[in-house]
């Protein structure tokens, strides 16, 4: 089940939350766990056994490591085994193209699992005593499929005891509605634009259209992921949990360093705490720092995808980050203009590399982005006008909503009645788009 579907919004949410709220506090974890199982099984029932196995293995390893407090050597071995298990399962599904049946949420729950055993090993948290408690954390449906990657310590208290007030439910619903709007009204529309451009064939697009396409993927990926993260956070709030934020207006960043402190924060923090710092971070001299960065970024690239372009994407960021660390960032911080121009190129180009898996096609696209000869024949430029007619406003909205403006406005106005009205309209508009696409797939036979 996906969040932006009629069955989730109008069946799962009312039924599940009614049971959840009626249930006394003691039973809520169990209800949440049961609901999460239903949620998961709906989307991918065949993978459920292996995911349950992973959860059980992790719970067990956590307990074992916890209880072997004195014999530190053995503890390391158990940690090692746990990590090998999870990474092994991850690679098996990711690399093995024969098994294209990858369990839903694999990338996210694998990382959460590793963070759990690592944190127990480091003594940051105590292993969860009750299997129900641990499984509830593991399977919690808001964050299971696409994160945010939540450390156990962040919700441990809430797992044991949480109070849910109508105000919290209100807050959660509003955040959910905002996320839904971002996904359906912006991300999906930008996705359609990108699809249209692919249909034309990259060899035939003008330079402005190539840039419009790059902006489209940038907006699509952002609003899709941010939308989903907000929906997860909203649902978490309704359950009584405070899930971590994933994005902080990343497109307003002035450098790649800053960008990765604001984009998919739970992921970059994970890499920092569980790969970069254990390897020594930046504390072992310049050469080691650069090596550590390389490891992190190769892994980051591969976590996102297994084809060459993802590796290129990761390494590209590695190069820019290294340059920034050495001297570039100081130069960028000096002028605002330089920052904006720099990121104006880096962000769209990086997302193009991320989105095109075929090397030849990627090369063609990048060529189109820098082919100034397009402008010599004005007749060629009609194509960007054609697409701006249908998607221009949405793209503009997307760009405006990527700034710090919306969150400032929201913080100021969230208590107002008018805000609620606007969000309700947004909500129903999103539902409308979902319905017309779902109930009448032939309507969307827009050939």
């Amino acid at each position, binding site marked *: 089940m996906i969040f932006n579907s009629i069955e989730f919004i*109008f069946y799962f949410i009312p039924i599940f939350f009614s049971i959840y709220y009626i249930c006394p506090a003691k039973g809520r974890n169990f209800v949440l766990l049961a609901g999460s199982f239903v949620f998961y099984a709906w989307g991918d029932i065949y993978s459920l056994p292996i995911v349950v196995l992973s959860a059980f293995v992790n719970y067990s390893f956590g307990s074992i490591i916890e209880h072997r407090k004195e014999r530190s050597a053995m503890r390391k071995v158990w940690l090692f085994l746990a990590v090998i298990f999870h990474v092994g399962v991850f690679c098996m599904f990711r690399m093995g193209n024969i098994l294209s049946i990858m369990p839903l949420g694999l990338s996210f729950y694998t990382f959460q699992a590793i963070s759990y055993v690592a944190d127990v090993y480091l003594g940051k948290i105590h292993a969860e005593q009750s299997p129900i408690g641990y499984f509830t954390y593991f399977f919690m449906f808001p964050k299971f499929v696409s994160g945010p990657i939540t450390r156990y310590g962040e919700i441990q208290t809430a797992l044991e005891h949480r109070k849910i007030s109508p105000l919290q439910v209100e807050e959660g619903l509003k955040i959910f509605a905002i996320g839904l709007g971002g996904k359906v009204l912006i991300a999906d529309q930008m996705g359609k634009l990108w699809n249209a451009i692919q249909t034309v064939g990259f060899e035939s697009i003008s330079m402005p259209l190539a840039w419009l396409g790059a902006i489209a993927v940038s907006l699509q990926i952002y609003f899709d992921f941010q939308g989903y993260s907000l929906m997860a956070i909203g649902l978490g709030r309704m359950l009584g949990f405070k899930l971590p934020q994933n994005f902080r207006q990343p497109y307003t960043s002035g450098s790649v360093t800053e960008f990765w402190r604001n984009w998919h924060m739970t992921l970059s923090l994970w890499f920092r705490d569980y790969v970069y710092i254990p390897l020594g971070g930046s504390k072992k001299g310049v050469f080691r720092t650069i090596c550590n960065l390389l490891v992190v970024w190769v892994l980051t690239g591969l976590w996102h995808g297994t084809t060459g372009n993802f590796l290129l994407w990761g390494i590209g960021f590695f190069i820019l980050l290294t340059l920034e660390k050495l001297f570039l960032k100081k130069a960028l911080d000096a002028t605002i203009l330089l920052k904006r121009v720099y990121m104006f190129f880096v962000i769209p180009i990086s997302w193009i590399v991320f989105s095109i898996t075929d090397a030849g096609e990627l090369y063609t696209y990048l060529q189109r982005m820098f082919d100034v000869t397009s402008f010599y024949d004005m007749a060629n430029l009609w194509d960007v006008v054609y697409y701006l007619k249908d998607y221009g406003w949405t793209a503009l909205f997307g760009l405006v909503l990527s700034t710090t403006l919306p969150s400032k406005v929201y913080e100021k106005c969230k208590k107002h*009645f008018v805000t609620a009205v606007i969000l309700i309209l947004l909500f129903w508009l999103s539902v409308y788009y979902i319905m017309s696409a779902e109930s009448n797939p032939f*309507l969307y036979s827009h050939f």
Partner: protein
Amino acid sequence: MRYIKKCPFLILLIWTSAIVVALHYGGYMNPDTDNVLEFLRDTVGKMQENVKEHSGQNIQLSEETENMLVESEEEATGIADAQMQDELPQEEYEEIVVKPQYELRMVDDAYFEDAVFIGDSRTVGLYQYGNMTQATFYAETGYNIYKFFDGKIVTVPDSGEKITVEEALMRNQYKKVYLMIGINEMGRGTLEGFMEEYTKVVKRIKELQPDAIIILEAIMKVGKEKSDSDDIFNNVNITKRNAAIAELADNESIFYFDMNPAVVDEDGNLNAEYSFDGIHLKAQYVQIWKDYLYANGIVRTE
């Protein structure tokens, strides 16, 4: 009351949901269109109708409606006449057969100066990338046969006024009318229903363009991946539809033209190399369709 102040969103959500669910189960809401405003208008319209019925007004058949019923009866007999012409054996790729006063040959740009292309997004592709600026195009993504009479897709050059294709054909005369349509309609209704409307449209075009030949283009096939994975939009159904369309050709003023041989692979599916989505030709391959049109111009020999 204080809940409205504390949790306005929640309250509004419950309240509006109740209304929406009631309307939905009352049959008022059917997202028939992807245009929100149209949908709202439809819904309000349905509600108004219902109110009128309930207030005891009898809905009399207006004169207009009665005339329309008489007209469609006449049309039914008219269609039977048109189908009296010789029909050739139906193969998968209908050969373009012409009667003595016409021949098939290579034509040049001038041939298309008085030609009009009517169709859906595939024809839009021909317009965008075929570089046939001398021809006229009445085409739009999502266009279907039902929109011929009421879909305002044609923009009048100077005034910016939007008119239907029917109206456009009333105002302008052409010598060749190309029509490629039928894939969007596969998602709803039946083949018979589609052919009924299609035949009506062809007849109307013939009335409006007495000096023109009408070239009914076969629906372009879809790619293998699409065809194999879709119950509705697949090449088996497209072939059936094309066979029905071919039956309308009289080879005197109405011709059937199949460009598929130029763009399909050995299995009869749209060549995967020529398309990204299996439905539309990539811009650089639209030339193939264009070349096929140029190679097979239908020319009067007399």
